[in-house]
C-alpha cells in the first residue's frame, strides 16, 4: 500500500516539476509548482513528519507561491511579447544547471540508499522538532527569528512612513 502511494506521489512530483519547466504560460508553471509542493508534503507525511508537511504547505504553497502568482498575474506575460533570450544567457543557464546537477549527483552518490527509509521515526513530530530546535540549534533559530521579526517590523515601518 505504502509503496503504491510512494510511487504515485513521486511520479506526480516529477511530472509536475517537469511541467513547471515545460509550461508555456507562467501561471501554469506556478500552479504546477504548487502541485509539486503538495506531493512533497505527501512524502513528508509518509515519513511521519506531519509538522514539516503542514509547515511546508503553509509557508511555500500558502504564502510564497501566492506572492509569485500575485506578481505573475500583474505582469501579464503573453506568449507574443516573450523576449528572445540571447545565446549568452542560454549558455550561462546551461552551465549553471549543469553545475547543480553535478553537485546533486555527487551528494547522492555518497548516500546509502540500501537501508529502509525510517518510516516509523518520531523525529518529525512537533514536540521532537521543537526540542531539537530549541536545544541543539538554539542560536541559529533565534537569529533567524530575529531576522524575520526585523523584516516584519521593516515592512510595517515602510507602510508607516507615508
Amino acid at each position, binding site marked *: 500500500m505504502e509503496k503504491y502511494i510512494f510511487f504515485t506521489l513521486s511520479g506526480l512530483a516529477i511530472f509536475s516539476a517537469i511541467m513547471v519547466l515545460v509550461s508555456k504560460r507562467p501561471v501554469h508553471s506556478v500552479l504546477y509548482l504548487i502541485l509539486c509542493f503538495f506531493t512533497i508534503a505527501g512524502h513528508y507525511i509518509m515519513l511521519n513528519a506531519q509538522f514539516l508537511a*503542514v509547515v511546508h504547505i503553509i509557508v511555500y504553497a500558502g504564502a510564497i507561491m501566492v506572492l509569485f502568482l500575485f506578481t505573475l498575474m500583474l505582469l501579464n506575460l503573453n506568449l507574443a511579447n516573450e523576449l528572445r533570450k540571447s545565446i549568452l544567457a542560454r549558455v550561462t543557464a546551461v552551465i549553471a544547471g549543469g553545475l547543480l546537477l553535478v553537485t546533486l549527483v555527487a551528494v547522492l552518490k555518497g548516500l546509502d540508499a540500501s537501508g529502509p527509509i525510517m518510516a516509523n521515526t518520531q523525529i518529525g513530530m512537533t514536540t521532537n522538532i521543537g526540542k531539537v530546535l530549541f536545544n541543539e540549534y538554539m542560536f541559529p533559530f533565534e537569529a533567524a527569528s530575529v531576522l524575520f521579526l526585523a523584516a516584519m517590523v521593516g515592512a510595517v515601518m515602510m507602510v508607516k512612513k507615508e
Partner: protein
Amino acid sequence: MIVYLIYKVALITTILLLSLLIAMYATLVERKFAGFIQDRYGPDRAGPWGILQPVCDGVKLFFKEEYMPNTADKFLYILGPCLTMMVSLLTSAVIPWGGTISIAGNNFPLQVASSSVDILYIFAVVSMGVYGIMIGGWASNNKFALLGAVRASSQMISYELAMGLAIASVILMTGTLSLQQTVDQQTSMWNVVYQPLAFLIFFICALAETNRAPFDLPECEGELVGGYHTEYSAMKLGFYLFSEYINMFISSAIMATLFFGGYHMPFIDKLGLSPNLLTLLGTAFLFVKIFLFLLLFIWVRWTLPRFRYDQLMKLGWKVLFPLALINLIITGIVMLLK
C-alpha cells in the same frame, strides 16, 4: 477494521451533508436577518417562512446558462470554483464535533481525522483558500475579475498573519496543536476569558478571510461589478457563493472550538445522563454556538459599511498585526512567569 471504516465514511458523509445543509440555510437566515434589520420580512413566499427558498435558489443556479468567456483559460476557469469549494470543505475534517460515542464496546470519536497538528492543518487549508479565487479571477481574463483576485489575495495574505499570531497566543497558552486537547482543556474555563484580544483579532481576520462585509472588497459590486466572480454563471458562480457560507460555518466552528470550549457545555456533568446522550448534547451545544457565530457574521455584515482599500491594509498591518504581536509577547511572558 470494517466497522471502523464504515463509521468513518458515515461520519464524513454526515459532516459533508451537514455543512452543505447549514450553508444552504445560512443563505436563508442571512436574507431573513438582513430583511429584519432593514424593517422588511425577507423571503417568505417559498414555503412557510421561506423555508424552500434555498432550494429554489439552488434550482435556479443549476438551470442557468453555463457561460464561459471566449478568451478564458478553460481549465483554470473551471478549476477555480472547484478548488474554492474543496478547500472550504476540507477544514471540517479536523474539527472535533463532539466527544466519543460508544456502541457495543467500540469507541467512536466524533472527529474525522485527529492528527497532532490540527491547528496548523486548518491554517494550511485556510491559506490555500486564496488560490481558488486567484485562479478564477485570473482565468476569466477580465480586468474586474483580475482586480478582485488581486485584492482578495493581498487581503488574505495580510490578514492571515494577524490570524496566525492570534492563534499562536492560544497555542502558547494551551501548549497543544491538537484541537481535541484544546477543547478538553476548556472544561473549567473558556479560552476567550484568557485571550479576549486574540479572539477579537481572530474574529476580524475570519471576517476578512471569508470575504464578508466589511471586508468584501474582492467582490464589491459598487466598484468591480462582481469582483473575481464577474465572469461566472450558473453552478460555478453557485460554488463561489456557496463556499463563502461554508467558510462562514467552518470558521464559526473553529472559533467555537478554539475560544468557546467547543462541544463542552458548562455544568453538563451534573445532569447525570448517559455518556452517549451527553456527547450528543455537547454536539448540539456546539451547533448552537456555531449558529450564534453565524448570526454574528450576518449581523456585522448588515451593520457596517465596506472598508476602503487603504483602510483595510492599514487595519491589517498597522493595527491588528502589532496588536497580535503584543498579545503574543504578553502571553509568552505570562506563561513564562507562571
